[in-house]
């Protein structure tokens, strides 16, 4: 049997509102047209002016399928533009936009290749509305995750509990990904200090959001409440996590009485529940990979970050010399992280 190779982070781009209008009420479509709605940039990070035209794989499912490496057996589609909505002030519009895009993925992308699975996009402004959207599509056989970018609340807070509960109900992993507006405006998760003033600031400081999120998830006891939940950090890399988890363990030993619901070390909680998509674009230094030895062997998963990444799968994991470790990162670990992938027969093209 072909060994599984799972791309945990393959983005979907939508070029035109016309692709989404059929998936919303006529009045909402009118509302967007009247407001001169512009599709969010497909490369949402500030300073990124990449464009993905049909045929390049960003918005064309058939082209994306044709571009997949032949050994890839499963692809988790993570729509890119709904992530941007953490920076929108119109919460209802964000949900309508994301729901329409979810329907677009189901209708246009899933039929294009049997390897395609998808993460249900849910803007996190309104936990109950997000949960409703998760329950609307959670039963779809190709749904394997939900995906959102953090808003200003810590991921440990009750704000997100309806999302976690709905995801857990359906056995869906939770993918957490930057939205691109972190620190820029009120709404998305904040960065420390005075906030970023350049795109370089933003890129370099994004791990701050992930660090707060991981700390909140573990110390606030989210995994005590939602015992089967898996959270996958995508777009943040992993290099920030090992020192943080070490520090969390050290503080927990002395201050356990503050969080008595943690009956094992934070790093052990994370090993069970949290995964990190390797950011092959920036995590190339051997020192970064040395840090990986501080993580649980199941912690890392591979994602191509297509169409944003300019590298193939091999480059993304260039720091992994050990063949067994590589196979875990591309196969066993993703299958464990996205439980719904394993529940289905491996897709064969």
């Amino acid at each position, binding site marked *: 049997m072909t060994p599984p190779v799972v791309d945990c982070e393959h983005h979907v781009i939508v070029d035109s509102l016309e692709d989404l209008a059929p998936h919303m009420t006529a009045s909402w479509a009118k509302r967007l047209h009247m407001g001169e709605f512009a599709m969010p940039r497909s490369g949402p990070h500030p300073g990124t002016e990449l464009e993905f035209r049909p045929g390049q794989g960003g918005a064309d499912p058939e082209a994306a399928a044709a571009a997949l490496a032949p050994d890839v057996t499963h692809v988790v589609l993570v729509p890119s533009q709904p992530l941007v909505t953490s920076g929108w002030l119109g919460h209802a519009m964000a949900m309508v936009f994301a729901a329409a895009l979810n329907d677009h993925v189901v209708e246009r992308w899933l039929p294009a290749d049997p390897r395609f699975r998808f993460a249900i996009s849910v803007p996190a402004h309104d936990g109950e509305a997000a949960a409703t959207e998760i329950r609307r599509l959670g039963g779809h056989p190709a749904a394997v995750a939900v995906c959102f970018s953090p808003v200003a609340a810590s991921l440990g807070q009750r704000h997100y509990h309806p999302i976690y509960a709905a995801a857990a109900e359906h056995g869906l992993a939770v993918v957490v990904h930057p939205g691109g507006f972190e620190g820029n405006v009120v709404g998305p998760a904040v960065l420390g200090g005075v906030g970023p003033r350049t795109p370089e600031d933003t890129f370099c400081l994004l791990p701050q959001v992930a660090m707060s999120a991981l700390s909140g998830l573990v110390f606030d*006891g989210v995994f*005590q*409440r939602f015992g089967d939940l898996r959270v996958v950090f995508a777009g943040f890399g992993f290099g920030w996590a090992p020192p943080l988890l070490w520090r969390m363990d050290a503080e927990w*030993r*002395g*201050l356990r*009485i503050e969080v*008595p619901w943690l009956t*094992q070390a934070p790093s052990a909680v994370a090993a069970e529940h949290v995964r990190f998509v390797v950011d092959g674009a920036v995590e190339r230094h051997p020192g970064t990979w040395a840090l990986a030895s501080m993580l649980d062997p199941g912690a890392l998963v591979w994602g191509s970050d297509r169409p944003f990444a300019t590298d193939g799968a091999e480059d993304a994991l260039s720091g992994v010399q050990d063949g067994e470790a590589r196979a875990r990162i591309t196969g066993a670990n993703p299958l464990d992280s996205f439980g719904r992938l394993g529940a289905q027969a491996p897709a064969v093209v």
Partner: protein
Amino acid sequence: MTVARTLARRHVGAVEDFVEGEFKVFDLGGRPVGVVKTDQGFFAIRNRCPHQGADICGGTVTGTMVASEPFEYDYSEQTLVVACPWHRWEFALDTGESFGRVTNKRLVTYAVEVEDGNVYVMMKGGRTP
């Protein structure tokens, strides 16, 4: 031929010499041993934190938070621990084990006997006075 291991009984004072919750530290055969009176009886431990060697008997004897649901604290008076003054790692007074399993290391503990108003620490080796 086997040699029976005997416990030496070392007198450390009268019951009334002890203040509840406060360790008194003795040199018993070259070993620093702290003895404390609590509402659950006397306990004796070696005055050395297994983490980094602090004089743990300078720490606090207290009940502690036991496992609970998130943000629903459950303080147990019955679970007696000593919290190290250096890093606040907690160890159970009765077993010497790390409470909450923050480490596999444990305190050295000694049995204590109280007889006719006198307190004795039971230690391996030596002769019984």
